[in-house]
């Protein structure tokens, strides 16, 4: 680690990979804290990028973790969505880290819903860009095939390639580069085991350490 994250205010948002203790809300958050960043993490289970822009509800819970405090997890159904504009105003970040992909990749569908994904992504990134805040988008990990989530390695690769061209002005971190397909076991095809979330969190933090010098940050 080169210490470039020290002193940064980082807002981390994501999907269900952020809504359970031991997932990224624990591992990535802790890794960034350990590098001296001020970190706030918010997760919404099942949320698409547009759900952070257009108010709605999520069905399987949301969670938040502010600084060094523990995660507060709300599993009630129909819980209102966090809104990106409000989070930016509340946390004043220099950097926003977005972890999202599994909820939008159309697993089980014949074709990647490119137009819909692009619109979702653009809706979120444009709100962040409008405030001149640097951002990084973290794509999905490989997961496992043959489960009820219908996640396939081929679709994860396709989704990651698509996100790499769709998330600008955010920089893209390709999580498929961190492991081989199937190397990180899952509990359900999509969500990793504890060791997987430790590895994923550490790899994202290491990547941020390299990406941050390339970003124009708001002072």
């Amino acid at each position, binding site marked *: 680690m080169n210490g470039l994250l020290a002193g940064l205010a980082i807002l981390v948002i994501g999907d269900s990979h952020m809504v359970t203790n031991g997932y990224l809300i624990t591992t990535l958050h802790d890794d960034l804290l350990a590098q001296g960043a001020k970190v706030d993490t918010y997760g919404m289970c099942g949320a698409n990028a547009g759900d952070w822009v257009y108010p709605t509800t999520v069905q399987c819970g949301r969670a938040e973790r502010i600084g060094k405090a523990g995660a507060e997890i709300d599993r009630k159904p129909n819980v209102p969505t966090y809104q990106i504009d409000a989070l930016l105003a509340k946390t004043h970040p220099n950097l926003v880290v977005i972890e999202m992909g599994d909820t939008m990749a159309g697993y089980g569908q014949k074709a990647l*819903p490119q137009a*819909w994904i692009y619109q979702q992504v653009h809706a979120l990134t444009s709100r962040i860009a409008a405030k001149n805040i640097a951002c990084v988008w973290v794509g999905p990990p490989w997961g496992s095939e043959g489960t009820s989530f219908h996640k396939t390695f081929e679709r994860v690769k396709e989704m990651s390639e698509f996100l790499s061209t769709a998330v600008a002005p955010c920089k893209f971190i390709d999580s498929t580069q961190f492991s081989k397909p199937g190397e990180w076991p899952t509990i359900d095809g999509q969500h990793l085991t504890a060791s997987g979330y430790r590895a994923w969190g550490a790899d994202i933090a290491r990547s941020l350490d390299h990406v941050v010098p390339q970003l124009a940050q708001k002072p």
Partner: protein
Amino acid sequence: MSRWANGISRLLIGLAALAAVGCAHGDTASAAEGRLYPSGPPNGVAYLRFVNLTPHEVTITSSAAKIAIPAEPGQRVREFDPVPPGVELTGSAQFGEASKPIDVKLAANEFATAAVVNDGADGIAVMVFRETPSDFNALKSSLGLFNADKACTDAQLVAGENHQPVITDVASGKIGRRQVNPVNADLAVMCGSSGPAVQAKLGQLNAGDRYSIFVVAGVSGADIVAQRDEQAPLRP
């Protein structure tokens, strides 16, 4: 989006949804078992927009609603509305006593533009342009050349004083598309390689945005309608 527009969008989607429910039971029930939440739009999504390329206001009507599309610049091209794929979307376009049916069924991820054009016989016709684009890129601009002029057999989009080709040989009723860098380009449309160049004013192109340039039959040669595309969000 105007209240009328919202009305017809909901109407088309509403009519289609009844049919879609029937399809969904057969196609996706097994896929939904054991899943905490859907990944992507549950039944897929397609997009439909209406465009008025006539010199006068036209109306689009379904059994429950009617919208007017003015002929003024900036109001001719409506936004793409999300619609369910695999479902017949019906309506009609009217000008005065003339009426032409609209009947489209789209595949998932397909975009359709129902363009109302001037027709010599009774003053109105509908041309439906269909494409399934795969050039979404936040660093580039996407230009679509829609040839709605029957007399223009091979439309060309050119740039600069030397008429550098950008999109070439687009037959009437077809679309040509190309990604370009987001610049302030001096764009024009020609029919054939030696016809007069008619300016297509788009100004500074934005990275990540998509643009439509329509070639329309004018009084003395082709006219141009050019505008940035808008896409309504798909909400539950």
